[in-house]
């Protein structure tokens, strides 16, 4: 479902040029759970940004669900992110001024979903992550683990093909981390494709496949078990 080949990313130019990615080839089939590991500066976050269509690669091909992403306009990319992709960030990135329900509704608002339908959907998702009783709280009134659960609910709003998670447990304690990971694992079991960047081996261990990055290239890959 995700196929990239020869993907490169260069920041800056001339002597100051930084080669964040130096030709990456990767296939991620539907239903996969991939962990991307590597030291900082290895290009793993840049790679996730490109997969998430948040930035365009310097060169290389990217096919997502059969579409050539490089040919899409900015607004088409926005729609693609809205409909097919979900994001979970290290720092949760919830909007502090809006309550939890509204935060989860945001992707649905941009999708143009009718008011009642989207609030019902957001409520369902929050119940799924165990926050049905916190709908009208502000994010600052929640713990880190709860905030990340809100973010996961938000990422699922439009029932996307892929969830991209960038260090989802980076700001959480062990207990909250394992809560979040068990939610992600449950999603994987239910057939959702997940691509996650992490530098913690015990977090990566939840994934089916672990891909190691170094200096902008894939250096090693571990597969735990076959994809059903």
């Amino acid at each position, binding site marked *: 479902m995700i196929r990239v080949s020869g993907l490169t990313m260069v920041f800056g130019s001339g002597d100051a040029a930084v080669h964040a990615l130096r030709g990456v080839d990767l296939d991620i089939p539907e239903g996969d759970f991939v962990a991307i590991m590597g030291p900082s500066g290895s290009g793993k976050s840049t790679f996730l*940004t490109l997969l*998430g269509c*948040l*930035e365009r690669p310097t060169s290389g091909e990217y096919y997502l669900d059969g579409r050539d992403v490089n040919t899409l306009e*900015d*607004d088409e990319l*926005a*729609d693609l*992110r*809205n*409909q097919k992709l979900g*994001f979970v*960030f290290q720092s949760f*990135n919830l*909007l*502090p*001024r*809006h309550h939890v329900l*509204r935060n989860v509704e*945001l*992707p649905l*608002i*941009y*999708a*143009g979903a009718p*008011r009642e339908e989207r609030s019902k959907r957001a409520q369902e998702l929050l119940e799924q992550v165990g926050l049905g009783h916190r709908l009208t709280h502000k994010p600052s009134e929640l713990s880190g683990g709860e905030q990340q659960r809100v973010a996961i609910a*938000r990422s699922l709003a*439009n029932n996307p093909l892929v969830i991209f998670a960038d260090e989802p447990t980076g700001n959480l304690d062990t207990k909250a981390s394992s809560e979040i990971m068990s939610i992600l694992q449950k999603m994987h079991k239910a057939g959702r494709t997940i691509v996650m960047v992490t530098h913690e081996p015990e977090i990566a261990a939840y994934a089916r496949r672990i891909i190691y990055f170094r200096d902008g290239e894939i250096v090693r890959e571990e597969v735990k078990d076959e994809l059903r």
Partner: protein
Amino acid sequence: MNFADLVQIVWENLRAHRMRAVLTTIGIAIGIAGVIAVVAVGQGGESVIISEIENMGSSLYFDISPDYMRGETADSSTFSLEDPALIKDISPAVEKMAAITLGPMVDVRIPQSQKKPLMTSLYGTNPDLADIMKLSVEKGRFLSDLDVTAHARVVVIDAGLADDLFSNEEPLGKKVFVQDTPLTVVGVLEKVPSSMTDSSFGVRTIYAPITSAQEMLNNRAISQLCGVAASEETLDQAISDSVKILESRHSSLNKHYVGTTLEEQLEMVGNVTSVLTTVIGAVAGIALLVGGVGVMNIMLVAVSERTREIGLLKALGARRRDIMQQFLGEAVALCLLGGMVGMIFGIIGAFTIAMVANWPPLISIWTILLAVGFSVIIGIFFGLYPASRAASLSPAEALRHL
């Protein structure tokens, strides 16, 4: 994103920075208040001019004064009592003409009364004035030619003064003391709607035969002649005839005269109004400009504060237009807020000016639409740049922003 969602999100965002929002809108509020005051003053002034024309009745009115620009003043030799009749006889262009001693303020009281004397404006004049100024008599009669030749001790009073002096009593035939001279009331004028010439500023007016007025005031000077022309076409003719006749009659003293039409006089009123309008308008314009720049500034601050948030919204699927709408919406909402406050103060200001200047306060639905429209335009104008900056951020870069 539909409109209701936009409004709700904008509202939630602004509420998060209440103090900032209020401070930002002050400039806009002052500007909008000014704009409303300008419109009210402009319309009020105009309505006074129009009602004045309607009251004075005709565009045929003119008056003749000594040429003040050449340093002449009205003294006892400027006009003579016979001038009006003479001019009327000689020039077919002149329909009516009266001489007036422009009213000095005099005390009027009724005998055997403890009431304080009332300050009134005394006009000494001829019977023609009633037709010239369109004065209608409600009770009794206006002055007659006989009154003038007989130096009759009679007086015509306006409706306001009749109320003040006699309340419910019948004023006709009663005596009033003007200064210390007893005069008999022979007529009461009809009530006129507020107008500059008589009841405005609460000033009452009385009319006495010019001959008796001169004696009472011990002043032989006639301050001006006023008349009406036979037709619109002959108005200029009437003025130039009058001036020529006067200059030849008083040629030994080498006098100069100048005629003014009602229109020209009202133009002067209009000029005062337009000066006022320009001054307030300039202040309002500057306030709006400064206020608008303030809105732009605060929106730029908001964009840079919320860069990461913009990145997130884009990651969640916000299109360029969604971001644009949201920030433009906030700028417009700030201006609208200022516009509402400004409108309230503008309306208060317009009422105050109207009260002081004694013209009707004119606040129409258009004033409100103007305030709203202006606010929206300023919001869009000054919000466009910050909003487009927000909308054009790259999502990945915005998300990396700390």
